[in-house]
């Protein structure tokens, strides 16, 4: 064999070629690797990957050095794409937040199905830090009238004080001259809510007064509208008692904290009427 290999290499080469071609014909269209292939690939591929990664780095380096313009164009293209995706993401976040808020309003409207509501997006607010008046989209054309109550999922927002054809202005509970007839949900004692409680210039809550002298008011009691006065329907959530004042204070009986985030109002529900 050694002699043949030395003297007749061409013959051996032709025979080997024929064998290889036969092997090629046998392996055409196969889908599963043979054991030998599997072993060879398993042994070589890690080295192959290392070489590939190194080549990628070297190629990347030379591309950056010799073709900076193409890299710059790619960079500009990707920057634009990123900006477009960021805009979309911001839009998506805003929509998700709006969806969450509207879902809350819908839940509120569903749980008070005896009222007719209109959803009104807040379009403007005055520059007063305590946001005493907001302007919403939706006016007389939509059935909004003065003195209608405005609420959201967190409770009473305020009442309509001015109506245009397509807008309405709402005075919120945070206005010092707003007064609402309320009652303690647990004891049914009635009183009046209105006026701001300020501590060191910071708004803490709203004043609750005119409660009966023997009223059993406790911190955490829920305050709801009493329905007297005709503006706010009975039973709407207003807030919770934050603290009680001294018996002889005389000015007000308790401080009530509303759950409404007046500084970040984006939609309100205006109560257009009641069923029946």
């Amino acid at each position, binding site marked *: 064999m050694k002699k043949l290999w030395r003297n007749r290499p061409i013959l051996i080469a032709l025979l080997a070629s024929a064998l*290889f071609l036969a092997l090629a014909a046998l392996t*055409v269209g196969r889908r599963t690797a043979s054991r*030998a292939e599997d072993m060879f690939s398993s042994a070589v591929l890690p080295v192959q990957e290392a070489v590939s990664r190194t080549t990628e780095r070297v190629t990347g380096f030379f591309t950056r050095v010799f073709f900076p313009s193409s890299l710059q164009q790619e960079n500009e293209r990707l920057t634009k794409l990123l900006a477009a995706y960021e805009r979309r993401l911001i839009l998506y976040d805003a929509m998700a937040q709006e969806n969450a808020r509207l879902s809350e309003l819908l839940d509120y409207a569903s749980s008070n199905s005896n009222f007719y509501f209109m959803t009104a997006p807040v379009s403007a607010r005055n520059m007063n830090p305590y946001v005493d008046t907001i302007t919403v989209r939706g006016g007389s054309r939509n059935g909004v009238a003065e003195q209608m109550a405005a609420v959201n999922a967190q409770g009473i927002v305020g009442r309509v004080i001015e109506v245009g054809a397509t807008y309405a202005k709402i005075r919120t509970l945070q206005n010092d001259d707003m007064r609402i007839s309320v009652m303690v949900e647990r004891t049914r004692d009635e009183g009046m809510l209105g006026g701001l409680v300020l501590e060191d210039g910071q708004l803490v809550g709203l004043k609750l007064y005119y409660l009966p002298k023997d009223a059993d008011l406790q911190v955490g009691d829920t305050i709801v509208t009493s329905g007297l006065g005709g503006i706010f329907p009975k039973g709407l959530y207003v807030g919770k008692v934050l603290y009680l004042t001294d018996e002889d204070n005389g000015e007000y009986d308790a401080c009530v904290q509303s759950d409404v985030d007046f500084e970040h109002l984006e939609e309100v529900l205006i109560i257009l009427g009641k069923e029946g």
Partner: protein
Amino acid sequence: MALKKYIALTVAFLVAFFLDTAILPQWNLFHMVPFVMLALMLAAEQVFSIQTALVIGALGGLGEDLLCENMIGLTPALCLLSAVAYAKLPKDSDTKPLILGLYCAILALGVEMLRALASYVIGMRFSFWNAALYGALPRALLTGLWALGYMALFRPLLKRQVDAV
């Protein structure tokens, strides 16, 4: 001296293997990459012996097929056939390198066209004209050049070996 030759050939073989299977496919300017293993084999045949070339062609071709081809055996068969063809080409020790490079390029073109034909036979459809002009021809020319480079690299080894003998 023979040991140096084998070491040089082994290193060249491994480099050619990784150039063909990992490096050049990523760095192919205008899809023009030489067939380095074929170039190495033909250069080894020119400088050393046909037996050395056959071993390189068979092992290298088979290794590359096992990693990259779906017809295992095609590349070593084509390499061995081109080694036989190269042995039959008219040449002697005075043949100019340019002619040797041209031989290698012609054989590489033959290998590429046969590979294209084999692909066509198993169902691939493409234009032979495009395959020859934009694929096989530039690859063959580069392979010829590469083979000349290997020959220039190996000649000193052979000279030292002859001197030693």
